[in-house]
């Protein structure tokens, strides 16, 4: 397994946000984390990238524990976290945002510029925006930039937090196609999404979180067809009473 979470417990201030979750992501997969607002999806990503420190359980990446690492170390190990709300640097140009994405690699300027060029190949729309300040970009452009900046770290695992949030449907389609392409090029993706239907279409497997626990998990196609998923997230307003299955 590339990434393993074992019985991870994380507090958010005084509140326990994750009550012992276990998640596996294998190399080359797109795995989706689904669930309602407050279910613990973002908290899970923040725990992996160590913005939050788990109080119990273990996170292993490529066989090694991430215990005791700072976020700066985690990205250097090969996990890039693209946070919710894009969080590009508004007062830096598109190119500078991208170049800073290469910080953990300590590469020289020529290498970085070559990689910027390569990443821009995946995001052709960013190519014309190079000198523009981050804050002048549209939501879709900012999202593309945030993902591109994450790729500049040359990660083995990309954590994406709600990349479709607040974007127009056509732009969302664009973002999702880009994610598929990134995975096909060899980067493993852990994708947090509120839009379960969308995520299940591109993911191979998914975990459904509910109030800090894994409520459902399994193959994306099976989940898409499953009665629990349908009731909980895909359409009907009826909520599931209790998590019924954990795989």
């Amino acid at each position, binding site marked *: 397994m590339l990434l393993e979470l074992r019985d991870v417990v994380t507090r958010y201030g005084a509140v326990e946000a994750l009550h012992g979750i276990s998640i596996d992501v294998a190399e080359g997969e797109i795995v989706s984390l689904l669930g309602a607002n407050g279910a613990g999806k973002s908290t899970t990503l923040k725990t992996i*990238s160590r*913005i939050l420190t788990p109080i119990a359980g273990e996170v292993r990446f490529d066989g090694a524990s991430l215990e005791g690492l*700072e*976020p*700066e170390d985690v*990205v*250097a190990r090969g996990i*890039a*976290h693209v*946070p919710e709300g894009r*969080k590009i*640097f*508004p*007062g*830096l140009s598109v190119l*500078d945002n991208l*170049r*800073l*994405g290469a*910080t*953990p690699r300590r590469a020289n300027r020529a290498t970085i510029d070559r990689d910027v060029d390569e990443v821009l190949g995946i995001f052709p729309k960013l190519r014309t925006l190079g000198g523009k*300040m981050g*804050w002048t970009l549209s939501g879709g452009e900012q999202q593309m930039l945030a993902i591109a*900046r*994450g790729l500049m*770290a040359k990660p083995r695992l990309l954590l994406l937090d709600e990349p479709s949030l607040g974007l127009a449907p056509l732009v969302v389609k664009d973002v999702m196609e880009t994610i598929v392409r990134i995975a096909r090029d060899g980067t493993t993706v852990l994708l947090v999404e509120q839009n379960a239907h969308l995520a299940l279409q591109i993911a191979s497997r998914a975990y459904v979180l509910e109030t800090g626990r894994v409520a459902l998990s399994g193959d994306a196609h099976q989940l898409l067809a499953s009665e629990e998923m349908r009731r909980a997230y895909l359409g009907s307003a009826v909520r599931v009473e209790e998590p019924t299955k954990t795989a």
Partner: protein
Amino acid sequence: MHFDPVANLQLLVSGLAIGSIYALVALGFVLIYNAVGVVNFAQGEFVMFPAYIAATFALPAVAVFGGVVHWQLPLIAVYLLVIVLMVGFGLLFNRIAYYPLRDRGWLPVVISTIGVSIFLRNLVQLTWGSQPLVLPPLFPVDTIAVGALHIRPQDLAIIGVTALLIAFQYVLFERTTLGKQMRATAQDRTTARLIGIRVGRIVAITFVYSALLGTVSGLLVAPLFTVTKEMGALIALKAFAASIVGGFGSIPGAIIGGLTIGVIETFGGFYVSSAYVDAIAFVILIGVLLVRPSGLFGERVAEKA
């Protein structure tokens, strides 16, 4: 009162000189605020403390802890020594006053900087006593004649050094990776960490740089005033006003705000009343806040948002 162009030009030069001092200290405020989100209330002591150290090494005889030292090193050597010591001071300040409190929100850090300020003033009182010191001038003459103008060379040195520092800083922030990492940290600390920027290191560098900005202002201004334990407080207060006038958080704002306050208070001291010189900065501050509450450069909040 008749209009005298020569006198006005001389006033302008002195105003720009003292304004440069305010600008440097204001930059120190703004850079620390942008990096850690806290106003450093010890910024004035970053000006005063190095002036004392410089005086101790430069003067023929200085009373220290009741004894007397006679180092009298050459001024250039003193300057270099003080700058090296103040790099250490900046690192120590970061380690003691900020680092242990970095995850506790802004209030404990503010109180900690106030604590350092009080500590340093008392340390100075204890070490050097209450007798003011006078740093020897860098130049052998008080004024030089440029045409009909009589200008203090120290004023020109202040303006020149400030211009160089601002140019240096511009290159740092616009052209270097370190400068861009500093800007990224100022704009969004958590995200900066997520993309691998060693934010702790950036913050330490910021404290050192702000300490050096204070040091340079202290060394430049000391020959014009006496070195007392209160010398930093008034400069810092006016520099703080300058950074608000310029729009707090804005680097060009800090520079323009400092120069504006320096020039206006110098003219005001001459034409209105020299007794009210120290009030003028705050009159400007109130005026700007009434007309333009976000300061001169304050509308560019988008850059911080």
